[in-house]
């Protein structure tokens, strides 16, 4: 009898089933941050005077015209580049480089093509020293969460653009990051897929309530997703508006047709238009 029990329990550890994942909900804080980069021996200021607080469990969209430095700011939060002034912190700790507590979803999905879907999601847990069995359990949980369990052993090349981004999201989440950063993740998708992905992302967020910093130049996308839309000015990037989007949740595609939505859209559009014209004048 004991033997049977033992064999049963050992069987169980081979079939890891992780219940609803317990996510961290971290915060990001920027104080007087300035980021510059140099090329052609010239120093360009990409973003300046950045003061920002992203609270635990908040969905924040960073909205701005292209080239305004919003991706640069995100890269600084990711730790790929260093701010040359001010302080940038995650959960109170200064950000000094990329790390597993800040997960990232890229526009160019960037899944490792030589690894299977499951292998891609297992990568983070494995790198943090988890055993293969645990890492696989974690990976399967998140793969299930994005609805792609059937593709566990496929290579990324057979997936559609939307599916690749779902795997990218699962891969970032499998590390249980404090903050999920998304750099125009749906920018390369067709309009229908993009709408579907936005709804799915919101559903996922409603379940997990993680902290998200989402960069986009698409006004509808920003308003549809965010708790707060932060509008960035043309280069050098400054934060010029912080708009609280109090549309009811859960939101579905109908939300984008409400009068409140349109009011937010008008507000953002005017700001973006102003900034785009300013950027245009700068260049000409």
């Amino acid at each position, binding site marked *: 009898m004991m033997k049977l029990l033992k064999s049963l329990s050992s069987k169980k550890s081979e079939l890891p089933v992780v219940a609803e994942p317990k996510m961290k909900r971290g915060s990001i804080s920027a104080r007087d941050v300035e980021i510059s980069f140099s090329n052609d021996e010239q120093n360009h200021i990409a973003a300046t005077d950045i003061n920002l607080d992203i609270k635990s469990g908040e969905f924040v969209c960073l909205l701005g015209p292209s080239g305004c430095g919003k991706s640069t700011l995100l890269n600084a939060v990711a730790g790929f580049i260093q701010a040359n002034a001010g302080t940038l912190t995650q959960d109170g700790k200064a950000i000094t480089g990329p790390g597993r507590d800040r997960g990232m979803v890229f526009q160019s999905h960037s899944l490792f093509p*030589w690894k299977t879907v499951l292998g891609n999601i297992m990568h983070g847990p494995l790198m943090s020293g988890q055993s293969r069995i645990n890492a696989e359990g974690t990976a399967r949980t998140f793969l299930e969460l994005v609805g792609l369990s059937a593709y566990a052993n496929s290579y990324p090349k057979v997936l559609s653009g939307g599916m690749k981004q779902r795997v990218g999201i699962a891969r970032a989440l499998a590390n249980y990051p404090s903050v999920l950063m998304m750099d125009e993740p749906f920018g390369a998708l067709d309009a229908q897929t993009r709408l579907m992905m936005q709804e799915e992302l919101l559903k996922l967020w409603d379940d997990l309530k993680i902290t998200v910093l989402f960069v986009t130049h698409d006004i509808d996308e920003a308003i549809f997703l965010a708790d707060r839309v932060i509008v960035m000015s043309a280069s050098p990037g400054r934060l010029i508006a912080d708009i609280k989007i109090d549309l009811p949740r859960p939101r579905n595609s109908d939300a984008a047709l409400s009068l409140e939505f349109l009011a937010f859209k008008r507000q953002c559009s005017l700001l973006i238009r102003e900034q785009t014209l300013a950027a245009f004048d700068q260049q000409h």
Partner: protein
Amino acid sequence: MNLKFNYNIIAQFSSIPLFLLLWQWVSDAEIVNPLLFPPPTRVAEAFYRWATDGPLIMDAAMSVSRVVVGFTLGSVVGIIVGILTGRYQLVASFLTPIFGILRPIPPIAFVPLVILWFGLSEGGKYFLIFWGVFFTVWIATHLGVQRVDQTYIRAARCLGTPEHRMLSQVLFPGSLPFIFVGLRTSVSIAFYTLVAAELAGAFSGVVYRIDIAQQNLQIGQVMAGLLILGFMSAIADKLFSVITQRIGWWE
């Protein structure tokens, strides 16, 4: 199936028999000295005697083992050094000038030195083939690593990949398509170098046997040896082309 297609098949299947017939005729008609240019029948006979009474198996095994050992050493070291120079600018800055001097020297030119260093031992043969293979694999790996998409490296850093595992988890698989081009090129280099290595002094091996046969004016065996060498090299190349097709399975 049309007529043109049939002609192609006929041409393909008749080319070698016709070539052999022509060769037989040129030799038999004594248009050239048949002692120096024996007919294919004599080559086949020499091959048969070499295989049955002679040490063909031993010779082939020795030649293959030299290629395998030298090639493996050169590839492994070439891949490791290539990953390091491709990833770390400091290592590249240090090694590139040295390799810049050594790489253009034809490996065959090392034969006199190798004889002094290694005598007629197997070590010398391994060294020559290693030398020929190493630089080609190194360059291919180096370029491959530098062409690994930066977003893969960024993604890996974001996922908490420590630097030493970055090499094996991202840079090596990411540069495999390049590495395999280098390896395939090196296979034929390994066989070139084998020729020099065995001519420089050996006690067995296909090229060594060709050399001995030449001294005894056994031209039939010389030609049989050449065909064996070509055959071995072709098999190795074919093997690599099959592996190469599989290695980029993700693309």
